[in-house]
């Protein structure tokens, strides 16, 4: 555990879909410089938690504090400029736009003069995207789309990057690549909040982890501690 200051604090968050109580009093925090992962089964509320933090959904009660500022209740477009990005589940890149246009959209809230540099950095990291910069994003392969989605989120220069199921639907070799990218991002100073089905890999790279079950946090600890916990092994790591 680091002594770094708290970047994101979620306190007693309650979220409803109509009458369904999806998130039941969830509290956790992410410190600066950490990789924190939320693991849990389908429908446990992982994506709902991230979407609520990002401002796509409104909590019924509870607060989300980012760098000491209460952001719960703010819409997503006002949260992004504060330095938080969400790379959403299912990638959700703009299918009808070119690769480059997608990247430019990622920097929507930044001054135009800074965009070129960031695009150059992305192209350096992902030469594949540079080759395909004029291509319509919907025609990219699944792995390329995930890289584009992550790069697009990076274009806002986030302090906190939230990733929702970045390895979903990808071949094992691509999954390794995605996790390498996450480690690289972390090494370059970005704090990461990661939601993953692939609990084994997520726990391997995480400083700390929380287990979410039907809207409640049932376990928490360091990545290695949880990876060796019997309960976690049974439920999420296949025995």
């Amino acid at each position, binding site marked *: 555990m680091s002594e770094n200051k708290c970047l994101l604090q979620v306190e007693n968050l309650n979220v409803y879909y109509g009458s369904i109580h999806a998130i039941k009093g969830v509290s956790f925090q992410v410190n600066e410089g950490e990789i924190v992962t939320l693991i849990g089964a389908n429908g446990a509320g992982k994506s709902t938690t991230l979407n609520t933090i990002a*401002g*796509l959904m409104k909590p019924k009660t509870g607060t989300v504090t980012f760098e000491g500022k209460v952001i719960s209740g703010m819409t997503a*477009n006002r949260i992004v400029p504060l330095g938080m990005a969400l790379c959403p589940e299912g990638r959700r*890149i703009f299918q009808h736009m070119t690769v480059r246009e997608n990247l430019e*959209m990622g920097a929507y809230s930044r001054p135009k003069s800074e965009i070129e540099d960031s695009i150059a950095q992305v192209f350096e990291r992902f030469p594949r995207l540079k080759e395909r910069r004029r291509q319509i994003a919907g025609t990219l392969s699944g792995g390329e789309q995930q890289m584009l989605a992550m790069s697009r989120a990076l274009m806002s220069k986030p302090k906190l990057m939230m990733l929702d199921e970045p390895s979903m639907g990808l071949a094992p070799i691509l999954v390794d690549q995605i996790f390498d990218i996450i480690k690289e991002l972390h090494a370059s100073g970005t704090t990461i909040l990661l939601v993953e089905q692939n609990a084994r890999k997520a726990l391997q790279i995480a400083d700390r982890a929380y287990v979410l079950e039907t809207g409640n946090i049932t376990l928490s600890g360091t990545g290695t501690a949880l990876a060796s916990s019997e309960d976690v092994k049974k439920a999420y790591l296949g025995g």
Partner: protein
Amino acid sequence: MTMFLSNLISGISLGSVYAIIALGYTMVYGIAKMLNFAHGDVIMVGAYICFCCLYNLGLPPAVGVLASMAVCTLLGILIERLAYKPLRQATSLAVLITAIGMSYFLQNLAQMIWGANPKSFQTVIPAGSLTLMGGELKISYVSMVTIAASVVVMVALSLFVGRSKMGRAMRCVSEDKGAAQLMGVNVDLTISVTFAIGSALAAIAGVLMCSAYPTLKPTTGSMPGIKAFTAAVFGGIGSIPGAMVGGILLGVIEILGRAYVSSELGDAFVFAVLILVLLVRPTGLLGKKIQEKV
């Protein structure tokens, strides 16, 4: 031959008006995913405002056009804020019925203010025509101005949507509202701007249309509104070039149908063509269809 050319030009001219109206339908559909059936009535309001400026206030035509654009822009934003925004999460049927209600509301409001008797619209475009081919082919100034105005509108709108920051935000919102928000796009503002632009275009269409067909009454907007909606579906609803192509084709089909087949069935042709196109291409002529990759 000259007869055909002359018909073709009136068709393109009428179609240009349809295209300008269809742009409003298609942009709003693309971004707010709703059919704004009150759009046709904004055309009528635009024409009345211009009428008042010219006839009651004696202002020059250019001022009349600008005033009508300004009023319609505000009206469009107001309609969206008051009637549609509270229903953002409601079922599409609720929104559709609200739009139809808004359409009747505008018609009745116009009837209250200006009366049910048709007004004779004072054209903003000088009467007369350009004579070509040794006096055989006449093109009215109204047709020429209408076609020119629609070209300007289309080029300007394409540039705006394709190049400007707001235009790009609009395309993102039309594709995925949530993802657009995650980029920092203000979705409410984008929707307001869309309604504003659509309604300003409706004002232009209203003035152009009433310059060519100078009878103005509270229901003036409904038929062109429905035809322009047809044009938008014909071209592929949600697609801006589709609305342009659909509008112009529809105008040409209507006029040629009236001239060569039956003058009574002109409107029926328009809808028959729509049915045929939708049977062959359900997404319309230029409707988008990209296979999603997983």
